[in-house]
Every structure is written in C-alpha cells, then in structure tokens.
C-alpha cells in the first residue's frame, strides 16, 4: 500500500513535470520564431572608415570602397571604382521569409555602365540572384524566374533608386523583385528551394575597365529608409522634423487650395519679402522683418542648428505634468532597538512591493506614447487649436487694409477717447463693446425663452 508521503511526493513531481512541459510547449513557437529573422543583415555604412570596405563590419570584400561623396542617407556609403571587379559578402541571420532593399546609384557616364549583382546564399551555395548589367547598350535587369532570365530594364541613372527582393518560405518557396519604385514583378517559384538564407553577396557586375561607369550602394535594410535631411527634405513629414533638418516648411494659400495641404517640407529657399508672414510663412522673412510689428510673437530670428533663420515661434507647451514619484521608505536611522527592527522589517516588506523610479518612468513614457497615436494625436491637435485661438482673443490686433496699393493699419487711437456715458467715464471702445455685449445677451435670453416655449409646446 502506498504511504501518504509517497503519494504526495509523486503528485508534486508530476505537477512540476507537467508545469515544465506545459511552459515548453507554450513557448517553443517563440524560440523557433526568434531563431529566424526577416532579414539577413542591415548595413547603413555610416560608422565605417573611409577607404577599403574589407574587414570592416564583418564584410569580406575586394575593391569596394567606403566613400562620403554620394550617399542616400547619413554620412557614408560604398562605391565600386571602375578599374576593378568588386565583390563583397557578409553572413548574417538565418532567414526563411524576409525582404531586402538596397539603395543603388548608377552613373550615366561610362561605357559600359557599371551594374550590380546581388546573390542570396546558404553558406556558399547561391540560390537567388538579381543583376543589373549593360548588354547591347541597354541596362538589363535579370532575376531568377526560376532560371536566370531578363525581367526588365533599368532606366534611372545619376539618382538613388531602390532594388527590392522579397522571399517567402512555403510550399513552394516563392520570391519576387522590384526596382526603381515600379510595380513588383509576379511571384516566382519553382525548382529553387531553400530552408533559409544567411548570406548576401553584393558585387559590381562588370570586369574592371577604366572606361566603365561607377556604381554606388548605400543603406541595405528591410524597408526603404526615407531620411528627412537636407537634400531629401520632401521626406520630412512634420514642421518640427523639417525645421530640425535645416529644411523649410513651404506654405502658400495657392498650394493649399490646389493640393489641400497646409504645407510640406522643401529644400531651403532664400527669404522673400512677398511671402513673409506669420506661422508657416515665417521662413520667408528676412532678419529685418522677422518678429517685427505684426509678426511679433509669431516669428523669431534664431539658429536652430542650420544657421540663423526666421522660424515660427514654438507653440506654448502646457506646463509639465508631475511625473509619478515613488514614495520614499521610512528613515530608520534615528530609531533604536525593537522600533528600528520593526521599521526595517516594514521597509523590507514595502520594498518588495514598491516599484523602482526607473520602472515607473518607463511606464509613464509608455503611456505617453499614446499621445502620438490616433485618435489622441488628432484630439490634442484640436485642443491646441482651441487653446491658441482662445489665448489670441485676449489681445487686440491691428487690422491691415490696402487702398490703391498702399497698405496701412486701421487707426484705432480714437477708440481710447473717453466720454461720459450715463454719468460714468468710459472709452469709446469699451462703450461699443458693452453695447454689443448687451445685444448678445438680449439675443441669448430671446433664444432661452423660445427654448422654454418650445419645450412646453
């Protein structure tokens, strides 16, 4: 007969084993998913030293050079000189399903033009290929269909263009290509199968010849990285990112009527007196006009990192909310004997349940991220609109008028002239305001009476 203790032990062991197996079963899909990535490697080349790419960033390379003349983003990219054959490869993550974008710049000068070849490999075994190569005076694009065949032509030179390859693990495995932001090719599938890719080779596609053109490469990533910076200002989406990049936020009423957009980011333009105005028009003001007269409080002449310019005054940021603070534990140092022990025990127990300030800050920031998301960001923009309008009501502004081409402000100096109204000294301005206020209040009471009548009718 089984003793009570033995039965309890067996039950306990069985429970523990069940728990462990359960946890493994529940979590193993995550471990498998973590073993594979949707990219092989990402490289922006910005941290490398100028010169030979070889042995930098785990690249095995011949003749590719790190350069800072032409780049899609950041400070550096690589290029293949026209005097040598360029090869480069790097092994990265295992990827069964994924996507690659590589930014390519092919010069129009050169005979033949320099092309590029991408090889997707398992170890050293090539599985997929994409190639741009000049054949019979035409820049042809080749890819696996599944055998290597021409799938199109390359037409854009002297500008950065994306080359994209996407692959999917399945039955069967399939892949497709896209270049120069055109439509994706059809999905191809067939005799090429892979369990994963873990290496991509980037090669210059022509044997070295002094007459060849050049090919530049930058930003190997999962998606096209649209960088908001000088030269690519049109990728800046908001006023703030635009200004920080040293670009200008273009605004014109004509553009607004035509495109239905209030403004967009453009390369810096010289100031123009004609376009100078408040808000998004500040950028067009010269130093002499910036923040003067009507523009006071709306525009300011400052250096925001891209040289001095006329910028819209930053909107009033609401006072910083009190960040959640963790209460401090009781100070036991001044106590003694049993009281000190009790105090320390209390602190110990409280310490178990008390969060650290660091974690509280993380929680605060995480919840704060909702402010950037719909619908909260839209609601906050509306809230800001009404607050600014409400604040603007506090001040009286001048009214500009244009007569025969001459612009002047309406002179309201007579507004301050005083007189006696019903025995009380009052300015003309406030008397008129009082009068209109009474008219408004009478109108309001009329409405109120009508509502009451309507209610009982």
């Amino acid at each position, binding site marked *: 007969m089984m003793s009570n203790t033995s039965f309890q032990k067996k039950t306990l062991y069985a429970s523990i084993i069940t728990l462990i197996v359960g946890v493994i079963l529940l979590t193993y899909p995550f471990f498998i998913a973590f073993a594979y990535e949707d990219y092989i490697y990402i490289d922006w080349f910005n941290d490398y030293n100028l010169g030979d790419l070889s042995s930098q960033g785990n690249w095995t390379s011949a003749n590719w050079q790190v350069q800072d003349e032409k780049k899609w983003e950041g400070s550096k990219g690589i290029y293949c000189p026209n005097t040598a054959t360029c090869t480069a490869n790097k092994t990265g993550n295992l990827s069964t399903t994924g996507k690659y974008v590589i930014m390519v710049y092919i010069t129009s000068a050169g005979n033949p033009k320099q092309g590029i070849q991408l090889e997707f490999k398992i170890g050293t075994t090539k599985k997929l290929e994409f190639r741009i190569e000049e054949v019979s005076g035409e820049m042809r694009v080749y890819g696996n269909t599944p055998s290597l065949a021409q799938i199109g032509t390359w037409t854009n030179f002297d500008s950065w263009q994306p080359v994209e390859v996407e692959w999917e693990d399945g039955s069967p495995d399939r892949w497709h290509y896209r270049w120069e932001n055109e439509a994706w090719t059809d999905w191809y599938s067939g005799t090429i199968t892979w369990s994963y890719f873990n290496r991509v080779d980037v090669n210059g596609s022509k044997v070295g010849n002094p007459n060849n053109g050049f090919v530049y490469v930058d930003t190997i990533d999962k998606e096209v990285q649209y960088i908001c910076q000088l030269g690519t200002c049109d990728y800046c*989406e*908001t*006023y703030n990112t635009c200004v920080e990049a040293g670009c200008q936020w273009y*605004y014109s009423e004509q553009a*607004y009527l035509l495109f*239905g*957009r*209030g*403004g967009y980011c453009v390369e810096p333009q010289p100031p123009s007196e004609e376009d100078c*105005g*408040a*808000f*998004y028009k500040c950028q067009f003001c010269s130093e002499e006009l910036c923040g003067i007269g009507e523009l006071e409080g709306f525009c300011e002449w400052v250096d925001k990192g891209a040289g001095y310019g006329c910028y819209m005054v930053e*909107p009033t940021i609401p006072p910083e909310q009190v960040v959640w603070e963790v209460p401090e534990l009781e100070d036991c140092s001044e106590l003694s004997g049993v009281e000190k022990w009790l105090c320390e025990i209390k602190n110990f127990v409280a*310490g*178990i*349940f*008390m*969060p*650290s300030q660091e*974690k*509280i800050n*993380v*929680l605060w920031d*995480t*919840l704060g*991220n*909702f402010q*950037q*998301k*719909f619908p909260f*960001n*839209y609601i906050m*923009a509306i809230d*800001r*609109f009404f607050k*600014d*309008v409400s604040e*603007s*009501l506090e*001040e*009286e*502004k*001048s*009214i500009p008028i244009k007569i025969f081409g001459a612009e002047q402000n309406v002179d*309201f100096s007579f507004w301050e002239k005083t007189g006696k109204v019903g025995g009380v000294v009052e300015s003309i*301005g406030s008397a*008129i*305001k009082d009068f*209109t*206020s009474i008219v*408004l*209040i009478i*109108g*309001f009471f009329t*409405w*109120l009476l009508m*509502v009451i009548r*309507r*209610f009982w009718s």
Partner: protein
Amino acid sequence: MSIADVLITLITWVFQKIILPIFPVNLPFLSFATFQGILNGTLKHNFIWGLAGLNHFINLNLLFILVGVVIFGEILFWTIKAGFFLVKLIRGGG
C-alpha cells in the same frame, strides 16, 4: 527587482508590443501631418487674424461662451424631446 517592477515590466511589454502597435498614427485619408499643418497652420492663422478685427467691437469671449451654451442647450433639448418620444412610443400612449 520588486514584484511591482515585474508587473510593470509585464504591463509595459503588453502596451509596447500588443496594444500600441494596434493604434495607427495617421488616418488613411488625412495624415496627421496634413491635419496638423492645416489646423494649426492655415486655419488657425486665418481664424486668429479674422477674429482680430472683430475683437475691437465684440466681446468674443462672451460670444463664444453664449454660442457654446446655445449648442449645448439645443443638444440637451432635443435629447430630452427624443427621450419623451421614445417613452411614448414604448408605452403606446397618446
């Protein structure tokens, strides 16, 4: 690391990985940048400068408060009317 820290780590993970990614930043037909640009740029500019002239003659604060009360009152009025109508409809009374 306290129990509260573990809980907060779990909560922030759920927020960052599951809940936050569900919320979009932009509406498909009106991106936030466009909305913000129009509302707090063009529209606000025109609105403020449009009101600037009126402010000399009319107490705009009073005007907006009264307009707000009228809008709120009308909504309340029609809500109550609708409530009475529904009650009558359900009771079937004349």
